[in-house]
């Protein structure tokens, strides 16, 4: 029955003169999201609205699911497209649409006609009255309410005539690509994929870095991270994933520094390495899944200590979230089941029984002095030997 979708967007509408950039990005993201969906789609931008037209057969559910992953969309309205074959024909179609969509309904409704094609013989008011009357004739239990209708039936007169009344909520946010890019520190856990999702939602393109520690972490742990990146990429679009071999650096820190400081020092170097990939890829910030107080390395003292090495802004979208709130989003975006697969990541393999929870920056810096001899070279090697995987 539905042959098109009207795409509603919220925040783009307020972007003034840049608006066309946002709309273009949104159109591109929609095309990208639909690239693997069964069917032929035409995405158009006309008179301040975005439509997805379908040609021939298409999979309705798959299409809606794909559109629900496009940031910037606030609502998706399935549209019935009618040829203009005179008012009588139109009225008949509108009535049968209502009967089909709302059988035996007692709801209140309002017809909202928009006459974009001004040569149509009836004006909007006439159309509203006439169509409303026809509906009341066949659906005696429905009532008109022009202020707060439960069903808002829109009839747009263009070259063809569009009829719609339902809005499927979209993910909101802004189209990816309209707000630069940032580098996500992706582990195999629950939090970092969610953090990536949330920043991407604000229109930021995401690339990612993963720290791999063979033989202490397995090939499967790496595969899990690639799988997580794939799940995030459903929303964010393609992700360039840098897989860094971190073993040498980790062992070097282990040898040279106090054991209870290992995690903090390690995280400081992870940030530095992530920054150098950010520079390479033209990203302007880092993203982590940290949340205050969640573990020893995420106390406010530890965060301050880790943050100290960064020269770029670090985005921590989950900073004020409880674990359960994070899990809820992970479940919604379908990363949770993958995140909880039991493979060790490099943060846990050498973790001390009692890591410092209130690190003192001066003491940490003093410990890092013991690394001076080799660490720069090791970091360079880690960056230059990283494997880059393009994830879609």
């Amino acid at each position, binding site marked *: 029955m539905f042959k098109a979708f009207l795409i509603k967007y919220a925040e783009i509408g307020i972007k003034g003169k840049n608006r066309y950039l946002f709309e273009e990005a949104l159109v591109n993201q929609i095309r990208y999201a639909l690239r693997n969906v069964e069917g032929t789609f035409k995405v158009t931008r006309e008179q301040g609205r975005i439509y997805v037209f379908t040609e021939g057969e298409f999979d309705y559910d798959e299409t809606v699911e794909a559109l629900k992953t496009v940031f910037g969309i606030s609502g998706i309205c399935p549209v019935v497209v009618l040829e203009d074959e005179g008012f009588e024909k139109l009225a008949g179609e509108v009535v049968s649409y209502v009967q089909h969509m709302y059988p035996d309904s007692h709801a209140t409704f309002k017809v909202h006609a928009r006459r974009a094609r001004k040569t149509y013989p009836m004006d909007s008011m006439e159309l509203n009255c006439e169509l409303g009357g026809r509906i009341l004739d066949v659906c005696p239990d429905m009532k008109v309410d022009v202020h707060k209708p439960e069903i808002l039936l829109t009839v747009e007169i263009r070259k063809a005539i569009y009829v719609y009344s339902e809005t499927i909520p979209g993910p909101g946010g802004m189209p990816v690509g309209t707000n630069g890019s940032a580098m996500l520190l992706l582990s195999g856990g629950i939090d970092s994929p969610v953090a990536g999702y949330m920043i991407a939602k604000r229109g930021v393109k995401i690339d990612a870095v993963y720290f791999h520690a*063979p*033989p*202490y*972490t*397995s090939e499967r742990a790496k595969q899990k991270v690639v799988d997580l990146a794939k799940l995030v990429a459903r929303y964010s679009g393609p992700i360039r994933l840098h897989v860094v071999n971190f073993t040498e650096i980790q062992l070097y820190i*282990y*040898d040279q520094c106090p054991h209870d400081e290992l995690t903090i020092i390690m995280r400081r170097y992870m940030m530095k390495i992530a920054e150098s990939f950010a520079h390479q890829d033209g990203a302007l910030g880092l993203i982590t899944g940290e949340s205050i107080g969640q573990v020893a390395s995420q106390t406010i003292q530890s965060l301050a200590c880790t943050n100290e090495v960064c020269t770029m802004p670090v985005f921590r979208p989950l900073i004020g979230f409880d674990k359960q709130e994070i899990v809820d989003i992970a479940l919604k975006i379908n990363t949770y089941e993958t995140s909880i697969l039991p493979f*060790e990541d490099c943060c846990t*393999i050498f*973790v001390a029984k009692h890591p410092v929870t209130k690190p003192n920056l001066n003491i940490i810096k003093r410990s890092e002095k013991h690394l001076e001899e080799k660490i720069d070279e090791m970091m360079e090697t880690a960056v230059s030997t990283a494997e880059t995987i393009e994830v879609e």
Partner: protein
Amino acid sequence: MEAYLDNSATTRCYEEVKDVVVKTMMEDYGNPSAMHQKGVDAENYMKDAARKIAKTLKVSDQEIYFTSGGTESDNWALVGTALANQRRGKHLITTAIEHPAVSAPMAYLEELGFTVTRLGVDKEGRISLEELEDAITEETTLVSIMYVNNEIGAVQDIQAIGARIKQKNPDTYFHVDAIQAYGKYRIYPKKMKIDLLSVSGHKIHGPKGIGFLYIDEKVKIRPLILGGGQQTGMRSGTDNVPGASGLAVAAEKIYENLESQMAHMQELKQKLCQGLSQMERVVIHGMPLEEGAPQIVNASFTGVRSEVLLHTLEERGIYVSAGSACSSHKRSGSPTLNAIGCSMEEKESALRFSFSELTTMEEIDYVLEVIAEVLPMLRRYTRH
């Protein structure tokens, strides 16, 4: 160099197996249930396969039922007999070191109201005949004991166990999970008083997805898979002709030179154990060299987590398996290593090496060389 020492997980197919699998897929691909000639040809493959297998066990062809593998055979043997004989009694006996293919259906039967006795084992993984005898009652309908333990290679005295069971209660059925034993030992169910025997194809250089259950003709058992009535209605589903033919070829071949292959694997084992025992803080689990299965060595490399050593060996082309799938999230560890009283440290550092007739002495030398080289490095870095 590559050394595949994970033959208890699965083995490489024999060339002859591949040939018959391809032939029954591409040329003689009929459905044995079909009435036309192609069906008859395919049926002959099934009959031939049953005959070949029956011969290795000295049982009748009609007592061999093909299944999807070891797990299905175990499930069927336990659930099928327990349910069919529940009016006689609802007591079952098994051991603490069974494969999950046995322990999980046992737990399921417990949920259905059966009582299950789990016999403990000594430090070497051996059950006590006295304890077994004491556990058997009038109500006991089934005893299920694995022949060769898949993790540590402990071998039970199946003939003595069979005799002891029948002596105490002649009506109690005896099921043997022989998945790691078939193709390694000569197993004669009639002589050993085995009523049901589970075997898997891919552990003996046959295809995956095929196995069989030997069921003594006198056993009362219910089918679990219902449908078109294949295999005399006991196990429905279109006959897996490539699988069964492949399995039969593998079975025939592996029993051809059994004694010399056993001797070969025994030598490999001796060599490996000798080398390992010279290393510091390495503990070899299970029975003394001559008593345990010749194809399995399980050892703990204390101070190094299994997973880490496994991946280190993997980088050098050596494939083994972790004695217990232990991760930071799940610290329960293997029931077998628990049952033989391993410490947490030993459990977390256990690796299993398993051979086949294709394993060479050079591979063992290489493995010993690599382990000796990487152990000190890995032991430097631990959690503490």
